[in-house]
Structure formats: structure tokens, C-alpha cells
């Protein structure tokens, strides 16, 4: 049998990929792509577009007699409000380690879950917490304030009372 490397390929020569194989492979890859894209689309579903969490803003009235350095914790909230010479500020009581609610102690706050200790202003004194407690945005005046737990401000941001 002679080979015709230089001559034009004959209609009868086997093609590099036969038509049947090509169509078969093409449909296989099309099916794979369709399943893949469908899976990607399905994976998108569990990430909620709107989070069903309750409102993060709340009103609070600070007692007139609140001494400086003494936290005021509104009932049912995990935020401590302070009023001192620089102004009013709100410190989150959610531990930055794993989200437990810290408890007040004589030196500031202690986390019951893994023993992190914080100062009254939220700085880490001890333990696994990687960051200081967050400060939240406070607006308002005259003893009536609105705290927004959804907005974190840099520590040292006071609202002039």
C-alpha cells in the first residue's frame, strides 16, 4: 500500500477525527457544559440576596445619672453605651473571637466561651480574640440616641453630647 503524503486527501481516507466521533464528542461536551452551568446556577441559590435579620438600629435613652466609665446595656441588646468627657460611644458586646456575648466584670468585659478579656473600651487584654470589640455608630442628642449595630466605626469615635 502506498501513501500519498503530498497528494490531496481522498474522500476515502480516514479523517483525523471521524465525523461520527466529532459529533459524539461535541454532544458529550455540550451535555457536560450544560450540566456544569446548571450546577453553577443552582449553587448561586443558597446565597441569599436579602438577609432576613432584624433591624440593626435601635433607640436608647441614657439615664441622666450614668457615671463616666460606667456602661449602660439596653435590655435585650448586646451593646454597651458609655458617656464620658469626650462624648457618647457604643461598644459591641459580641466577642471578636467566636461571637459569644461578653459579660461585664470589674476590669471591663470577659468572654464566657474562650476566656478573652477586654477593657471597658473594648481593647483586647488577654485571650484568643483577634481584634478589639467593635464600636458602633451613635447618633442623636440630649440623652436620646440611635445606635446602629450594622455600622462599625473606628474606636475613639465619640458623639459629642
Amino acid at each position: 500500500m502506498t501513501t500519498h503524503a503530498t497528494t490531496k486527501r481522498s474522500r476515502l481516507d480516514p479523517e483525523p477525527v471521524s465525523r461520527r466521533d466529532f459529533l459524539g464528542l461535541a454532544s458529550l461536551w455540550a451535555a457536560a457544559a450544560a450540566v456544569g452551568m446548571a450546577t453553577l446556577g443552582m449553587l448561586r441559590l443558597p446565597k441569599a440576596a436579602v438577609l432576613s435579620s432584624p433591624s440593626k438600629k435601635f433607640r436608647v435613652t441614657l439615664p441622666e445619672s450614668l457615671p463616666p466609665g460606667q456602661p449602660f446595656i439596653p435590655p435585650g441588646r448586646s451593646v454597651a453605651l458609655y458617656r464620658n468627657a469626650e462624648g457618647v460611644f457604643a461598644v459591641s458586646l459580641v466577642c471578636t473571637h467566636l461571637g459569644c456575648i461578653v459579660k461585664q466584670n470589674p476590669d471591663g468585659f470577659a468572654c464566657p466561651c474562650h476566656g478573652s478579656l477586654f477593657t471597658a473600651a473594648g481593647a483586647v487584654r488577654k485571650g484568643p480574640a483577634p481584634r478589639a470589640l467593635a464600636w458602633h455608630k451613635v447618633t442623636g442628642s440630649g440623652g436620646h440616641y440611635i445606635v446602629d449595630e450594622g455600622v462599625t466605626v473606628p474606636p475613639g469615635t465619640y458623639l459629642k453630647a
Partner: protein
Amino acid sequence: MSHSALSEFAANLRAAPRRVLETMFRSGKPTTDRTRSSFVFGNVFLHLHPARTHRWSLRWTTTWGLGILCGASFLITLVTGVLLMFYYKPYPDVAYQSIKDIHFVVPTGQFIRNIHRWAANVMVVGVFLHMARVFYTAAYRAPREFNWLIGMGLFIVTLALSFTGYLLPWDQLAYWATTIGANIAQSPREITDALGITDKFDIGGLQRQLLLGSDVVGEEALIRFYLLHVMILPLALALLMAVHFWRIRKDGGLARPDDADQRLGPPPADTYPVFTEAPQKTYQLAALVKGRTPAVGRGPENTVPTMPHLFYAELGVFMLTILICLGLAIWMDAPLKELANPNVPENPAKAPWYFLGLQELVSYSAFMGGVGIPMIVIIGLGLIPYLDREKTGTGEWFGGPGGGRLVASSVVFGLAAVLAVEVFAIRLGWLREWFPGIPQLVITFINPGTLIAAIYALYSLRVVHRFNSVRAGALALFTCFLCGFVVLTIIGTHFRGPNWHFYWSPADWPMH
């Protein structure tokens, strides 16, 4: 004509129940070697087994029945779990009330819940022990490497099932364990925060949000955990189990030493059942797979029919598992604390016992304890069969007598190292107590957890070098991590009290 057709009809009707049974079991009663074989390979559920089983596989010391223990406890959780679903309602507060109903109103409700919980615990213990058995008998070696990976998948899904089940009662324990778990999922932020890229690349936050469906543990989180617990994870587990069992057979049954036949000797003359029919045939062609059946190159002397030998052994383990779960369920009730209160954490808030070793590590660094070290352990375990390609000692405990000594010295070293680091950290504290301004990244990478892991890794590298054997190093490393796991779990369970302080006994806990 019509008379005989009628009588035939009547006769067929009378015979129908018997014929239904006959057609259900194609080959008749398993009384001969031939029908016993077809009993196994003709049945869709039983044909995961080979028709004949090697006697080595049937020795108790080969497996201690641990794989069947895992499968049996899964079946028990499946049945009791479905029963609990009759009354359980996955909605916050309502969920808690429905568990109360199950406890106090539903007939046998509390008992069923106890069995469910204890079977889940038995399953976790069983999976740990089964994995240790497979490791210490080097049964993960070729051609069983991939089945070891399937087993790792089963291990992870088992733990995930336990964890998702933990939230469902919606009590204080559940709520805070889940809060901690969800924040562990978020803990890669410890790294991204330190690098200052959390705004652009917040994988931790994404993981937490996908898990909870919200930014708090609430109704969205409960329904997700419920879905995972009753649908997605059990399906995944069943699928992986099917592959796992199938591959045991396709990979040639259980691992055994090359000289197993010589060691066992010929079977006793009274081995039941003896060949009763056509003794020159052994009916194991149905089990012929890639030349790895017990028959290749060897006579069938040391195999016995799977029915009844293997099945009776499996049934025995199954009954024993039920007995254990029932006994535990009678002895101790599943706990139910107060209704979840998002404002007051449990103190101490403890995860289920098998996560307390991790929680001990998490108390040093959330990312390393909850994500980093577990990932390293899982990757390390998965690599074992691909790194240890040695041939000697397969199917033997600790690879022979020398291995036993090595494991014993690794136990001593493993215990000493973890105890030394823990005592140091509990007594003297850690970096932040000495250098309050230290960057978080330093603590993330240098903390008691990473220190223990590094000590173990160095020790096993030394063992690899000293014994000139990868298998020896793997034995040392696995043993060390097992010791570390046990010690950390015991510390987390018994010696950590409120604020995760160290206490010798819960009696010393301050009142709170």
C-alpha cells in the same frame, strides 16, 4: 374443560403465597454450597459481599467488627431519626417546644431521641476506631488507597451530621455551639483581616453566610441545618457508604498478610458447612474481579461461604450495636437545656465532646484551631496511602512486633508533648499576655496548637530518618495525633469551666 381450569386456578391460588416466597428468593433455601453462593450474588443488597469470604477476614482481631458497627449505628440513627421527624418542627422556639413534646408527650418519644443521640455517638466513636484499625493494619495500601479517601469522606460527613443535629433542639447548648461553629467557618477572616484584604476577599464571611443564610443564628440557619441533617448529608453518607462497601469487595476483600494461608493452616475438618454438592466447583466466578479474588493462585481451602459465616458475624455485630445503643439510652437521657437565648451565652459553652479537642485549640486561635489544623490533619491523613508505598506488614497490627514498640514509644512522646505544651500554656499564658501589642498574625501561626502539630511533625520526620521507613513515620505521626486528640478532648471536656478557665473538677466552678 372448564372444571379442570377452575381447579387449576384454585390450586394456583393456594400455592400463591409459597410461590411468592420462592420467586422472591430465586435459588431456594441456602442449604447447599451452590444455593448459598447464589443467595449472596443473586440479591441486590447482599451482593456487595463476595460469595466466599477468606477466613482471615472473619477473625475478630482483623477488624473487631468496627466497620459494621459504624454502618449499624447509621441504620439505627436513620430509623430513629425518621421517627423523630414525625413530631419535630424546624422553626425557632417551636423546635424547642416540639422536642419538649417528644420528651414528655409522645409515646416512647424520649427513648427514641435517646437512642438517636447515643447511636450518633456510637457512630462517631466507631468511625474513629475503624479508621485507627485500618491505619494500624496498613489496610489502606494498594489497591485500597482510594477507599481510604472514601473513608475520610465518610468521617467528615459523620462529623457534619453530628454537628448539624446539634442545633435542632434549639436550646442554649444548641444555639451557642452553632454560633461558635458558624464563627469558626468565618475565622479565615483572622488571616484576611491581618492582610487587610477582607473587603475584597471575604471567604470567611461567605462561608458563614452560606451556612446560616443570614448574619445571625435564626430561622434561616435552623432550616438549613435541618435540610443538611435530614436530607443532604444522609444521602451523601449513603452514597459514600455504597461506594465504600463496593470497593472493599472490588479491591479483593479485606487486607491480609501474604502468608495468611500458611498461618491459618487448613480449615478444621468440622468447618460448617462442608461441601455438600459438586465439591470440585466452588462457585466464585461471580466474585472474579481483576484477578484479586481469594482464588487466584491459591486453592479455595481458606475461604468459607459468606452465607452463613460472614452474615452471621455481621448480624452479631449489628445486634451488639443495638444492645449498646439501647443500654446507653436507658442509662442516660439526651440533654435538653433551656430555650435558646441569643443574649446570654452558656458558660461554659461547649460543643459535643468530639469537638472539644478542637475547641481547646480554638481557644488559642480560631482560625488555626478550627480550620488550619483540621485541614492539615485531613490532608495528611488523605496522603498516607500515597506516601506509604511499602509492602511489608500489610494486614498486620502495627506491621509486626517492632511496630508495636514504635507505637508504644510514640504514645509516650505524643502524650508528653501535648501535656507539656498545655501545662505551659495553662500555667504561664501565651504571647498576648506577655506582649499585649503583638500582631494577631503571629499568634495565629505560633500558638499551642500549631506548636503541638509542629513537634509531632518533626518527631515523625526523625522517625522516618531513623527507621528509614515512611511507614514508621506514619505510625509515629498518626499515634501522636491520636494522643493529642485524646488529651485535648479530655482537657476540653473535664478540665475547662466558666470562661474556659482551667479547673481540676467541675465542683470547683464558681457559681454563676
